[in-house]
């Protein structure tokens, strides 16, 4: 297990830095309180207090860990205070949005590769769509969809899709165009139709590009879903936890939701990586 030592070292360094930052950032409050109460605190007392405040500027790692434990393992999944429950809400929007975004991205890429007019026109729009801050457009999407009677999962999924289709389009256009001239000529000598060329050559050739795009798209989907939860009144989901936490100064809750989101993203991207390894190995394209 040679790989373990470097990882442990990095994690330890991050934790040390985190604790140091927590002490530094929370100390002002501790001293302030001490002055008001008229007590003199020793350095050890100050440090001890900075790591156990209820609403610290920066919660210490063990506080976040305790909160995570409390809201995942100790609570029932159906509880509104369970992080697993909220992550599940976000996950369902993420996955639905990811599916819509991926399908739309692949469809657009196929259109771009096969149709000259689309080739010239779609990409600038796709790029323009990504330059609009999602935080600005997300409430519009929610409001517009709500006014036509679409509520709940779908508006959030739509924002997810809005973010995740882009990397798929870019990657798949490149992937579908990756077969070289010789490969395309070969199919021309068979008088293959463009549909046959797509299925037998372009699609399989694009797999490495697809998986790379999916990883980026998945992370973007999760961000989209969380952002989509903010303007809905922050009722449910990781985004709601973040927003509620910031309303009430619950920094520990914010940090645990952030870490929950990060773990979720890592798990999802890891799953895609696994699918990628299996698929490409089966296709003889593993590198």
């Amino acid at each position, binding site marked *: 297990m040679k790989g373990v030592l470097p990882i442990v070292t990095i994690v330890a360094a991050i934790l040390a830095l985190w604790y140091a930052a927590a002490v530094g950032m929370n100390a002002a409050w501790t001293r302030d309180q001490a002055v008001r109460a008229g007590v003199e605190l020793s350095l050890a007392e100050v440090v001890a207090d900075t790591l156990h405040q209820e609403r610290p500027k920066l919660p210490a790692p063990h506080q976040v860990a305790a909160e995570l434990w409390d809201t995942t393992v100790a609570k029932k999944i159906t509880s509104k205070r369970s992080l697993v429950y909220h992550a599940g809400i976000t996950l369902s929007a993420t996955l639905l949005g990811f599916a819509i975004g991926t399908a739309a991205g692949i469809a657009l890429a196929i259109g771009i590769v096969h149709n000259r007019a689309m080739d010239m026109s779609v990409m600038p729009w796709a790029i323009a769509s990504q330059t609009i801050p999602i935080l600005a457009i997300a409430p519009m999407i929610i409001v517009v969809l709500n006014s036509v009677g679409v509520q709940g999962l779908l508006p959030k999924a739509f924002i997810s899709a809005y973010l995740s289709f882009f990397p798929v389009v870019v990657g798949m256009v490149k992937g579908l165009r990756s077969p070289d001239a*010789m*490969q395309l*000529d*070969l*199919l*021309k*000598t*068979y*008088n*293959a139709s463009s549909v*046959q060329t797509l299925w*037998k*050559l372009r699609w*399989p050739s694009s797999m490495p590009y697809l998986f790379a795009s999916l990883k980026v798209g998945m992370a973007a989907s999760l961000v989209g879903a969380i952002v989509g939860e903010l303007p809905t009144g922050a009722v449910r989901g990781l985004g709601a936890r973040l927003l509620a936490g910031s309303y009430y100064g619950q920094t520990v809750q914010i940090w645990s939701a952030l870490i929950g989101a990060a773990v979720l993203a890592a798990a999802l991207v890891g799953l895609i990586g696994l699918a990628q390894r299996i698929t490409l190995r*089966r*296709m*003889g*394209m593993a590198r």
Partner: protein
Amino acid sequence: MKQEKILCSDGAADAPAPVIAARGLDLTFQTGDGPVQALKDVNLEIEKGDFVSFIGPSGCGKTTFLRVIAGLEHPTGGAVSVNGMTSDEARRSRAYGYVFQAAGLYPWRSIAGNVRLPLEIMGFSRAEQQERVEKVLQLVDLAGFGKKFPWQLSGGMQQRASIARALAFDADILLMDEPFGALDEIVRDHLNEQLLALWARTGKTIGFVTHSIPEAVYLSTKIVVMSPRPGRITDVIESPLPRERPLDIRDTPEFLEVAHRVRQGLRAGHAYDD
């Protein structure tokens, strides 16, 4: 263009219509540096069952000519007919199999799967696909390798599989663009021998691009010598060698004489200094 037939074999009297005929073929590519004349006034007839090699230095248009025959490139002047059709009609009627310099097998398909590719595209039935794949794999000595994947095979075997793929749908014409160019000499000798045997068994008409004089002389019934700038035919040599050719025919005086004439033709074409 001189087209003397001093080494003519037993003279094809009342010859049937040629399988491939090019008349006054011109092809000019428009490039960023201005027009490049790839082919100029190319005339050639290929009879059924011929093994025709195109030889010349790079830039002489031999590959371009083969691509024109295949309908992958379109002449700017003159005409080419394949099986009595235009090259595009011939391509659409799948009149020829084409072998490229690289085997170009799909890594995600087994050898049998790769050979099956044209059959799937052309809509052969499952049973017939199976049957044909087995037959052509046997023809190129790859019987039993159908379940292997390309990366499990040597370069020579991969190229044989690509030949099997070109043979699978049983077109009368086989066009080969430097198919053994990337292989070492020992493998190349072996494949040349196998190709001749395959040609004898199937009676196909073969167009073969190469830049190796021994390969051209050893394989061909007709050698087309080409030269560059502009790409044109400088000599067409009918080989006096018998169709049955063991490898050691390459040490006979007849063989050396043909090779000598090819070399002369190539030298004559080099009007520029290099």
